């Protein structure tokens, strides 16, 4: 990261702090129009530094190695596929996965924010799924918070010398679950329960999302492991280019 890039990120973070921190206020896809305007703006602003960092990080990956664009495209496509599949779950309702784990493991958390927001915009405009007003909040939960946890857990597993595939599985599935936890908290902050406040409200939303999402998180973990196995077999040189096989910093 050069000086100029550092400066841009710094300005963006400052911007987010100024606008975002004021009242601590702040869902997976929160429905269009379901989040009070104030919250929409705050979440949107919080996303900006991550998106800027993500853009720069992607640009750097691509400029160091032009060929890695294929892997970037595949991680993006993986999110497209995975997040469009509504899968029946044990609770008798359907939900879908996030697919952001793969990108986070391969490129680091920030790059995924760009890939994630593309999918979210597509779904918000064409599918009435999520929404433009809640785009900021959705981006934060699915494309920022989830991948961050995924990346953290993946790195932790690497440090602890856990089997690589087990690590990837854990990272992707916990990241998926965490996305829904963040969504619950975001909704709870906007709609604190009259009797129990934010915590009671969060527990209520979590009770809706968590049991549905648990099996899906496991599927997401498995699919992420499968695609990484596939890439390792057939695209060794690309993975080495982005520093994945060496286990290097990226």
């Amino acid at each position, binding site marked *: 990261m050069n000086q100029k890039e550092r400066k841009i990120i710094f300005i963006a973070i400052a911007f987010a702090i100024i606008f975002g921190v004021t009242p601590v206020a702040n869902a997976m896809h929160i429905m269009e129009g379901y989040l009070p305007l104030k919250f929409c703006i705050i979440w949107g602003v919080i996303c900006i530094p991550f998106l800027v960092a993500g853009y720069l990080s992607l640009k750097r990956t691509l400029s160091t190695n032009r060929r890695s664009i294929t892997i970037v495209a*595949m991680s993006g496509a993986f999110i497209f596929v995975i997040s469009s599949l509504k899968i029946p779950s044990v609770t008798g309702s359907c939900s879908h996965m996030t697919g952001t784990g793969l990108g986070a493991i391969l490129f680091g958390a920030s790059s995924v924010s760009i890939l994630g927001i593309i999918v979210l915009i597509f779904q918000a405009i064409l599918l009435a799924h999520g929404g433009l007003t809640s785009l900021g909040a959705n981006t934060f939960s699915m494309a920022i918070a989830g991948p961050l946890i995924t990346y953290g857990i993946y790195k932790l597993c690497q440090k602890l010398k856990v089997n690589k595939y087990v690590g990837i599985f854990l990272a992707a599935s916990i990241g998926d679950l965490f996305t829904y936890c963040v969504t619950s908290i975001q909704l709870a902050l906007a709609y604190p329960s009259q009797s129990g406040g934010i915590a009671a409200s969060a527990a209520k939303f979590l009770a809706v999302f968590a049991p549905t999402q648990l099996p899906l998180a496991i599927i997401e973990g498995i699919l992420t492991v499968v695609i990484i196995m596939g890439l390792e077999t*057939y695209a060794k040189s690309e993975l080495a280019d982005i520093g994945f096989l060496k286990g290097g910093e990226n």
Partner: protein
Amino acid sequence: MKKTKSKVIILLIIAALIAIIPLLTLKGAEFGGSDDAGSKVVSEITGTDYKPWATPVMETWIGGELPGEIESLLFCLQTGIGVGVLAFFMGRFVERTKKENQENKKHER
């Protein structure tokens, strides 16, 4: 290589089973979206029927709710784009590896 293949197949079968079993065991369940379930909880907590203050862009364009069939079309489109890109690159990688392997063999001779 062979070992990876069987591992992948087993993993995929497990994934498919997790998805299919609820469908078979929970007879008569609705399988609505959990995103929609979220809106019900919102109404429950606020005590009133919550009225969204914005409608999805698509619904304002066509002036009504998106027909179910069209919605599944668009979802398929999304899946299609994704699978297309994945399959295209994966195919290229597989072919490349094959070619490299062949060339390596030639060198050995």
